[in-house]
Structures are given as C-alpha cells and as structure tokens.
C-alpha cells in the first residue's frame, strides 16, 4: 500500500494495527494505552546491589533466550557496554534469539555483526545503524527486519508496549552501590543520560554498568535506584576520547560558512525570530556554524534566545554562559564543554528522550520549538529527507531526533551541500524517506535556497527580506547537470529494515540491495 509520501509498504507489514504514514499529526487526539513493566520487589533492605559480573547480573535478572535487551548511546563511538553485555549473554550464558533495542548503534558495535551472522541476535531496534552492522543487516543477514525509530518514536513505542524491554542496561559514568546513576563525576563522563531514562522506567529489569562507584547517595540521579535491579562494576565502560570530543569547533570550511550564513539570514527573516525564540541545531559543519551567524543577528536586533534543546555542544554552552540564551535543556552531550557544563552551569538542564521528542506524550519540547537546523544525506523534490541509507542503499545513518524536531518546529531548515563528490544531495527521489517532506520547510544549499511550497508564509518572508530562492526542482536539475543522472538502485524484494514514522505508522522500508554488476 502506498503511503502519504508515495512509498510502497508491503501489506504483510500492516498487521496488528500497523498503518502506513498518513501525514503529520495523524495520531493527534487518539488514545494510547501505556504498558507497564513487571518488576521485582526488593522489600528486604539491601546493603548493596553490586554483583560480581555481567553474567551474574544477567542471571539475577532471569535472562533467557528470546529476550530484548535495551541500551542507550550516550557513550557514542566510545561505548564498550553493548559489546560486553552481548558477549556475556551469548558466550557465557549461551543465550540466543536475542533482540537489541538501542537508542542508537554505531561503529563501536561492529562485533555485534558477528552475532547477527551467527543468528544469535535476531532483532535490532534502533535509531542509528552504521559500520559492519549496517552492512550485514543490509545484506539480509538479520532474521527479522530491523526497526528504525526516531528518538521520539522510541519512547512512544516503549510506553505504548510495542517494545517490551526485558532487561535495560544503563551505562553509567558514576553509580552508587544501589544504582543511582549520573553522567558526570567519573572517568568516562557523558553528561546527560536522557535516552536511558525511559528505558529504566519501562524495563522489567535494569542493570547498571559503571566504571566509577561513588558513595551513596549519588544525587541528583539521572537514573534512580528505585528502578535498578543490579549494579556491575567494570574496568571501563568506554573510551573517553570517543565519548566526547575535546570541543566541537565551528567549521572553517568556506562552503559550510557560506551556507550557515544563509541559514541565519533565513531565520532572521521569519516572524519567529524575536526575543525569547527557541532553537535547536545539529552538530554537522554548516548546522553548527549557524550558531555563529545567528548570534550576530541577535546582537544586531538586541534579542536573546529563550531556550535551546537537543544534543548540546560547546558553542551553545558558550551562548548560555554569555547570557544570550536563557535555558539549555539537554538530552545528550557531544563534547567536553557540554559534558562539563550540564548540572554545573545555571540553567543547563537534563531531560529524557520522551520529554525531548515523544509525539504521544502531552507536551514534548520539540512541539514548542521555533527553529531547527538539520543536515541531510539526501533531500528530494518533495522535501523528503534521507539520513539513513547511503547512495549504495546500505544502512549507515540515524534519523535521531531529525523527524521529531522537523515535525514539531515552526520552521525546519535543512542545510546541505548540493553535491558531495559525485552524489547529488538534492535528488528526484531519496533512497529512503526518514523525515517526511510535509515536516520540512526550507532547504539551504551552497547553490541556492528553496522553500517548501506548503509554506507560502515563509516564501513571503524571504521575498520581503530580499532573499533569493528558487524551486527545489531547479536545485535538483543543477545537481544532475554537475554529476549526471544516477542509475536507479537495484533492490531485491526482501525487506531488511522498517522505518517507522515518529507516530508509529510506517514511513518506508529498506530492502536488500541487489549486488551491482557492470553488465
């Protein structure tokens, strides 16, 4: 069945009430029955929940084959915990048929690809999938299609019982002996632990894995002892160098700077750019550089930013410290400046993934957002964005909060170079729709700006400000005139990944790529 963005969704996926994507806000006003976990009572006072090993923790939680384990990705490319836990479960306890439900997975998790190939891991639910894992899933080696959700879609699915977590593993930079966890004060700090929060509340069992045991009580806790079954102390939960980079520097690339300047120009031309406005930006080159130019416009107009959300890094912390933004509310930290600021700088707060982006709760932050500036691997003439699959059709990205912020914000700006090498970023049809075009408002490229025709109000704003813009088709034609028109990718029928829209409907599927031959 074809969905709202023109993608053909196989009927066999449309079971148990699953629907195809019908446009944004389709689920508005409907009811959701929250699921509740089955948790163990610890009535008798416990001196400590520390167990000797991950294997012991798994046994304590009644781990068995067929279960779903959850993980969060605040340790990013430095994470050791996913691999450690899966190794203990599969190689020590001999478990199989396991499903990994992670908030995101990356290059740090290449070893999991082996467990997929061996058939020990049979399901993956995640926002991001990259590296070898992306390759083996794309090659059709995972037993069930991977389910890809946005950062807001995941807590919705957990709260609604679509994902039932048997054991949640919380990688904690610090924990006390009963499992009060924080993201700071240890040796592998990650700052915010926002993505772990929903998991801990809705999992049947919770295991805290830490490399820095601190005195009880570890307060204020991001994940609380009242939800934790066991604490495991390991040598190291991750490589600090890869958890948080030294400091996200604003790009000096002239192309990025030029695009960033145009992003700020567009923002300043809209009516939402007024004292107290709210903002989120990605950490990619041009998105982050937009901060710099935005600050100039704020100074010029004598206005301040009310609040900023998102993955946070140094330049935003800098604005907070300078008093140019009122509050920063933080679901994840990308660099040491942000890690060292959360809970320390006044008005730098932590929030959960659900609070950040869940479309099914009663008021996520994204819904109050004025502007979001985001990157794209591809964007097509329907303004549909792909941030998941490469030009070869292989899984190598993450929707993250992209679809959530795009849908919630008043003005969603995509910033991307027109071409990357010989890849047309602006194209006729994206390989995979990860953010639907009805949520995307403006496209800024190095070759020009285009506005979604759905937003006549914004077109008028740009015209009034004398900002030149062109139809997105013009940009696509320019791209193809440079790189040539690409051949269509060749797919097989087998679906290797299902892409859920943030509201739980099916936005797209990724199929197994047909091996390419020249003849």
């Amino acid at each position, binding site marked *: 069945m074809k969905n709202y963005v023109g993608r053909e969704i196989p009927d066999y996926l449309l079971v148990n009430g699953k629907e195809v994507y019908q446009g944004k806000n389709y689920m508005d006003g409907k009811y959701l029955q929250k699921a509740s976990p089955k948790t163990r009572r610890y009535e008798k006072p416990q001196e400590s929940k520390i167990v000797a090993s991950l294997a012991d923790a798994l046994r304590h939680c009644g781990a068995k084959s067929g279960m779903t384990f959850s993980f969060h990705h605040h340790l990013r490319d430095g994470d050791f915990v996913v691999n450690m836990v899966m190794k203990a479960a599969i190689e020590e306890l001999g478990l199989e048929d396991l499903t990994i439900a992670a908030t995101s997975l990356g290059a740090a998790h290449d070893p999991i690809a082996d467990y997929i190939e061996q058939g020990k891991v049979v399901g993956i639910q995640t926002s991001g999938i990259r590296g070898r894992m992306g390759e083996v899933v794309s090659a059709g080696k995972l037993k069930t299609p991977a389910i890809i959700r946005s950062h807001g879609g995941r807590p919705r699915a957990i709260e609604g019982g679509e994902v039932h977590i048997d054991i949640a593993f919380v990688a904690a930079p610090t924990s006390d002996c009963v499992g009060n966890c924080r993201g700071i004060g240890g040796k592998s700090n990650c700052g915010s632990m926002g993505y772990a929060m929903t998991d801990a509340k809705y999992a049947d069992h919770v295991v805290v894995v830490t490399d820095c045991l601190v005195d009880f009580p570890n307060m204020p806790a991001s994940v609380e002892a009242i939800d934790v079954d066991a604490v495991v102390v390991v040598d190291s939960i991750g490589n600090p160098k890869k958890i948080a980079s030294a400091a996200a520097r604003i790009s000096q690339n002239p192309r990025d700077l030029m695009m960033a300047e145009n992003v700020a120009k567009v923002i300043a031309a809209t009516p939402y750019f007024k004292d107290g406005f709210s903002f989120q930006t990605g950490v990619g080159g041009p998105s982050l550089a937009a901060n710099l130019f935005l600050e100039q416009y704020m100074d010029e107009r004598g206005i301040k930013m009310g609040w900023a959300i998102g993955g946070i890094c140094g330049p935003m912390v800098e604005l907070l410290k300078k008093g140019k933004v009122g509050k920063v509310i933080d679901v994840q930290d990308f660099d040491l400046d942000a890690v060292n600021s959360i809970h320390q700088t006044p008005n730098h707060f932590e929030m959960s993934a659900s609070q950040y982006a869940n479309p099914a709760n009663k008021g996520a932050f994204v819904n109050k957002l004025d502007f979001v500036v985001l990157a794209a691997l591809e964007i097509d003439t329907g303004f549909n964005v792909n941030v998941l699959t490469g030009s*070869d059709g292989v899984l190598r990205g993450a929707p993250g909060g992209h679809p959530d912020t795009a849908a919630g914000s008043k003005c969603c700006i995509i910033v991307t170079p027109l071409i990357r*090498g*010989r890849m047309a970023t602006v194209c006729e049809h994206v390989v995979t729709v990860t953010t639907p075009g009805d949520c995307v408002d403006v496209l800024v490229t190095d070759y020009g700006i285009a506005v979604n025709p759905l937003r006549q109000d914004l077109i008028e704003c740009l015209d009034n400000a004398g900002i030149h813009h062109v139809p997105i088709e013009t940009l696509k034609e320019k791209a193809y005139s440079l*790189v040539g028109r*690409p*051949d269509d*990718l*060749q797919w097989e029928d087998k679906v290797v990944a299902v892409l859920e829209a943030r509201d739980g409907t099916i936005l797209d599927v990724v199929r197994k790529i047909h091996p*390419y031959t*020249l003849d």
Partner: protein
Amino acid sequence: MEILKPAAAGTLESSDAQVTVEPGDGKIELSLSSSVMNQYGRQIRDTVLETLDRLGVTSAKVSVVDKGALDCTLKARVECAVFRSMDASDKNIPWGGAVR
C-alpha cells in the same frame, strides 16, 4: 595511440580518481572501483572507454579507482595517464582534437 609503459595520473582524494594504464594484449581490459558504483558505475565505465577510444587506444590494461570524480575529472585523468605512458604529456597536446 599505443601504451608504451605503465603510467598513472590522479589521486585517491575525494572527488578525484586514480587511473593507471599498462600495455595491453590487443584489447582494453578495464578494472573499475568507485565510491558511487551503484549509481554511476555504468556512466564512469562509458566515459573511460569513450576517452580511450578518442585517444585511439585499443590495447591497454586500465585500472580506475574512483572517489566520486566528475566526468571532466575522469577524462583528464585517463588522458594524462595515456600521454604519460608515451612520455608525451608535457607538450603539443591535441587540445580540442583527441583531447576534448
């Protein structure tokens, strides 16, 4: 034109291609790898073969390692490698003739 000795041109930087030519045995043997193989493999092959054909090269082993080069770059790299293989890349290039 006849490939007299092995020669190469180009780099492995993004947007470039590295082209190597060697004397062949009566036909064109092309080995091609590309970072954009699925979408442009066929077009890259056609561009390389057309360029060799314009240069009158009928016997060569040609290897192209493409890093997302545009057609104009591919042509330039193939031509440079071929002229280098004849020690003729420095002067009197037939601009607008066989090179176009």
